[in-house]
């Protein structure tokens, strides 16, 4: 059967409006729940740098929130390591800083949140500092969190995530086996220069004795390079903050 153009257009318009209303309605209703799920996911990633994936997997949503609240303190700094509490009149919190959006700004204008992992309820007894990192993989953005021990040199753990790396190749940065390779590595060399750590080309070699090298991922060299750049860039951006913490801990030791 042939219908007139007017009928087809009317039909299309009605269909579009009905479906549009349905979808925007759903989005409105589910929006708050989705925000919550996203925030929880971010907390899981942050905690993933300091506690094991199995432990996080066994915790319920409320437990993760409670654990996060009692173990994580936050501070936001700028490139010079100075604390930032407000920007343009609005207060700044570490959770509200969007690393991805900041990544697009010039380095001097970016905000750098730091998540401080401390003993339960005692913000003074710091166990490690967790720094968000962000960069580009092969196809899309990659990001993660790096935990530094209180010597501000040894990596206590990392978590990585990605938007669109190749499954089985670059996407392996999310596997705990790959992330474990970074544990115990050091970011400063003996001369005190920031060299970060870098994944090497090829896979299966043993880099136990080399504090700045990590076994690579076979077939995912570009993602690995992205990880390397991301780490050296962001640890560089945090260097002022790291140095300030470093000098205060050495002072404490001297005293």
């Amino acid at each position, binding site marked *: *059967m*042939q*219908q*007139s153009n007017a*009928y*087809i257009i009317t*039909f*299309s318009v009605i*269909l*579009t409006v009905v*479906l549009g209303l*349905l*979808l925007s309605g*759903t*989005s409105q209703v*589910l929006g708050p*729940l*989705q925000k919550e*799920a*996203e925030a*929880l*996911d971010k907390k899981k990633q942050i905690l993933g740098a300091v506690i094991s994936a199995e432990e996080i997997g066994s915790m319920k949503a409320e437990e993760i929130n409670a654990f996060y609240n009692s173990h994580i303190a936050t501070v936001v700094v700028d490139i010079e390591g100075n604390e930032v509490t407000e920007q343009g009149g609005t207060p700044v919190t570490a959770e509200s800083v969007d690393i991805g959006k900041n990544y697009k700004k010039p380095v001097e204008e970016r905000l750098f949140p730091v998540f401080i992992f401390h003993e339960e309820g005692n913000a003074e007894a710091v166990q490690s500092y967790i720094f968000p990192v962000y960069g580009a993989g092969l196809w899309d953005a990659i990001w993660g969190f790096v935990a530094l021990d209180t010597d501000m040199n040894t990596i206590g753990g990392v978590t990585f995530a990605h938007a*669109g790396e190749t*499954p*089985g190749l670059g996407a392996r940065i999310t596997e705990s086996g790959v992330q474990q390779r970074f544990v115990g590595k050091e970011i400063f060399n003996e001369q005190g220069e920031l060299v970060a750590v870098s994944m090497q080309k090829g896979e299966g070699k043993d880099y136990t004795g080399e504090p700045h090298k990590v076994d690579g991922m076979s077939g995912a060299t570009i993602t690995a390079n992205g990880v390397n750049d991301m780490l050296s860039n962001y640890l560089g951006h945090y260097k002022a903050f790291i140095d300030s913490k470093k000098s205060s801990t050495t002072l404490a030791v001297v005293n």
Partner: protein
Amino acid sequence: MSTETVEKAIEKKPAEALLSKRRKRLISDPLVDDNPITIQVLGICSALAVTTQMKPTLVMAISVIFVMVMSNLVISLMRNTIPSRVRIIVQLAVVASLVTLVNEVLKAFAFDMYKELSVFVGLIITNCIVMGRLEAFALGNKPYDSVLDGFGSALGYSWIILTVAFFRELWGSGSVFGLPIFDYVSSIFGPDFKLATNGLMVSPVGAFVILGLIIWVQRTKTGYVEH
């Protein structure tokens, strides 16, 4: 406008049984004899991509069942009003809306699953099985029959991807639904015994191998030959 012409030809016949022989065939045919994956070889993309583990595969299967049943129902209800010149776009709009619904619900209630599946849930829109059934069946049949047909095809798709996922997870990661089966089995034979897992099964290549084996076994049994 001449839109409501076709339907009224059918006179009052004795009502067909709710699950008559013909209707049962609507569900059972796509399971083996006319399986969308192994016979029609449709929907291969997602069958390869999501089947490394049972859990995401199950979520995917449920999503496809929901999308197929609902889209078949909606299209079948509208079949006499859909202008034939834009029917593909109408089908696409309905399927895309349903898929977006699934995606939004996953994002709100199962965020980990959403992260794992995200792209592939979106790709249900272009899953040839869905569009194929809408075009071939729902446009010309009554709602109830169309629902059965969609359910049958989706089940045919689901059991295949679940079977593939079962073997891939078992051989690739040594577990089923995350339960470490290989560890249990290994521990029976003493502390030094360790069942090896096969990395090939974790990569998409593994899905090709398993799928090929399933198709081989099935076609040997049914004697199906491609013409």
